[in-house]
């Protein structure tokens, strides 16, 4: 490579197609939405849409959305990591790994009414798991005040696509956790726990963090499943946006756009927290 050439302008040119595409199909439409958050019903600019968000029911929706997303991102992250590792590393037959990753690909996008119905058929009041627990194990979960149509129920159902997503995204990283390192570590007398604590997790940490952020965003933006499950009884931000944008009853597109702006702020804060964490983790990985 000729070191005398000015590399910087040339380097940026390669990213032009990407940015052009992003501008055309992401920024323009998204920009119109985010700008619309500040428009009034009769034209003109206003802050009232956005400031109105700090009242109920919007505040509640944001709180619930964030909570559900955090819970499913963390649990999904841990469970996904465990499953992925179990399938990929430990001398597991190749077929199981292929089956798991392809299944995860499908399950990661299984949602909406079909998923809601599948869980109602499983854990609903006359679901097969509920009946099994009641009749064979003599545990009546509904008598214990469990109900699928609650925040917890939504979290249980959301994990169905969060865990596979984690598996899919972390699999390449686990692959990269070279087998030789594990063998070398055990040759040096390290136990499995020590390996994970000093080598495995630190090396994987940047990818884990990225994956968890992805899971958070995925859960935050999902709504078809929760609506199919609870018809909006569990108040989530995307559901509210749907009501105001194209429902049969309510009609206030600028309010919906303001809520989208709110989502943007939440995710931006997440990213801002992610950057120093990720830098720290990358240092460990080196």
């Amino acid at each position, binding site marked *: 490579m000729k070191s005398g050439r000015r590399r910087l302008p040339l380097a940026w040119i390669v990213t032009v197609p990407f940015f052009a595409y992003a501008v055309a199909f992401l920024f323009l439409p998204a920009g119109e939405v985010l700008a619309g958050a500040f428009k009034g019903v009769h034209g003109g600019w206003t802050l009232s849409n956005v400031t109105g968000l700090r009242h109920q029911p919007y505040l509640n929706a944001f709180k619930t959305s964030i909570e559900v997303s955090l819970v499913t991102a963390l649990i999904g992250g841990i469970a996904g990591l465990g499953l992925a590792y179990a399938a990929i590393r430990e001398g597991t037959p190749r077929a199981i790994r292929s089956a798991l990753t392809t299944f995860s690909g499908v399950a990661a996008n299984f949602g909406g009414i079909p998923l809601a119905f599948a869980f109602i058929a499983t854990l609903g009041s006359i679901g097969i798991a509920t009946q099994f627990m009641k009749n064979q194990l003599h545990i009546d979960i509904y008598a214990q005040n469990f109900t699928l149509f609650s925040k917890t129920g939504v979290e249980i159902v959301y994990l169905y696509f969060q865990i596979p997503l984690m598996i899919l995204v972390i699999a390449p990283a686990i692959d990269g956790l070279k087998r030789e390192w594990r063998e070398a570590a055990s040759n040096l007398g390290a136990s499995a726990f020590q390996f994970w604590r000093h080598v495995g997790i630190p090396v994987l940490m940047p990818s884990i963090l990225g994956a968890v952020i992805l899971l958070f965003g995925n859960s935050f933006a999902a709504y078809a499943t929760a609506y*199919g499950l609870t*018809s909006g009884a569990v108040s989530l931000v995307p559901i509210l946006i749907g009501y105001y944008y194209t429902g*049969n*009853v309510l009609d206030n597109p600028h309010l919906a756009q303001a809520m989208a702006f709110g989502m943007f702020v939440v995710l931006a804060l997440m990213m801002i927290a992610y950057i120093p964490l990720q830098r720290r983790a990358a240092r460990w990985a080196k």
Partner: protein
Amino acid sequence: MEDYEEQEVEFWRKLEEEGMSRSSMLRRSIAAAAGLTVLSSPGIALASRFGGAAAPPLRGKTAGLKTIIANAKQEGKLNTIALPPDWANYGEILSTFKTKYGISITNDNPDGSSAQENQAIVSLKGDSRAPDVVDVSPGFAISGTRSDLYARYLNTNFGTIPNSMKDGRGYWTGDYWGAVSIGYNSNLVKTPPKTWQDLLKSDYKGKVALNGSPLTSGSAVAGVFAAALGNGGSLSDISPGIDFFAKLKSSGNFIPVQSTPQTVASGQTPISIDWDYLNLAYTKEFPSAGWKVVVPSDGVYGAYYCQAINANAPHPWAARLWEEFLYSDQGQLLWLKGYSHPARFQDMSKRNVIPKALLAALPAASIYAKVKFANSTQQTAAKAKIASDWPSKVGS
């Protein structure tokens, strides 16, 4: 002066009395001017396309059914939107139209909302996939008229449609109405509920469902309205209805599952508060569920939907033929077969053209006589109340 022309004059007079603001006045005139230019060009385009076929007519009677059929057949296609085949027998209506006139129909987005229908008219303007006709709730029919989305058309039977169910100028016409009913699975529900108060009984724990959330589903709003009427409320006061559902929720009777054919068939929603035409259709569709329907006499709330023609319809003649078909005796009886009350019900029963068997399939006429419809002011107020109160009182 004929009936509707009188109304037209009245309407314009009322509008002047309202006293619009200057800016809305300006906007309306600009829109009207734009509408005029837009309306004229399809006429010309059409003329050139069909080598001389006239611009689509305003009145069905003047144009004559034969001309309409001929021109529609030449167009050969009709685009409909948001017509679920199992909703008030639309499936049979669509296929009968297709066979009778040999015009193919593309039915988009069968589960679309009224907002999406109007939105499609706007986003697909000028596209050949744009919907020719829409079937929307009155609130959206009115706002669609205001936004100049529709063309005026007075079908042959326009005069026999009740005044309260149509726009005098011909922008939209009510097509069918239904009342809120309680449907229940007689295998899982041993004591049948008969009134709104009954639903509070402890026998129905974990059994009562709506067709969606009233924050987005029109039939759920109607359910709350009907509950309001049955609990001392009125068309102007929906809060007793919201409180009723709050009570239902705290007693554990209410489950926030949207009732669909799946949940009805599987028994997940043993009691469903929904339109009578939907609940009655389930009776035939799922005999294993032993589905029975009752219209609670202590609160009978009804609502109708409205037909309108896209001002920029890609197939304007087919659109008008569709309306002629729907408002003919044959079309109206097909709706009755779907357990809904067609708009020309009174006119047809006066002329004795309704088969007794169809009438017998519906609950007693005496209950329907009590039905109340909310006008657009009451609807808007009710929706606002639901938007502010429902999430805190009923939603979690």
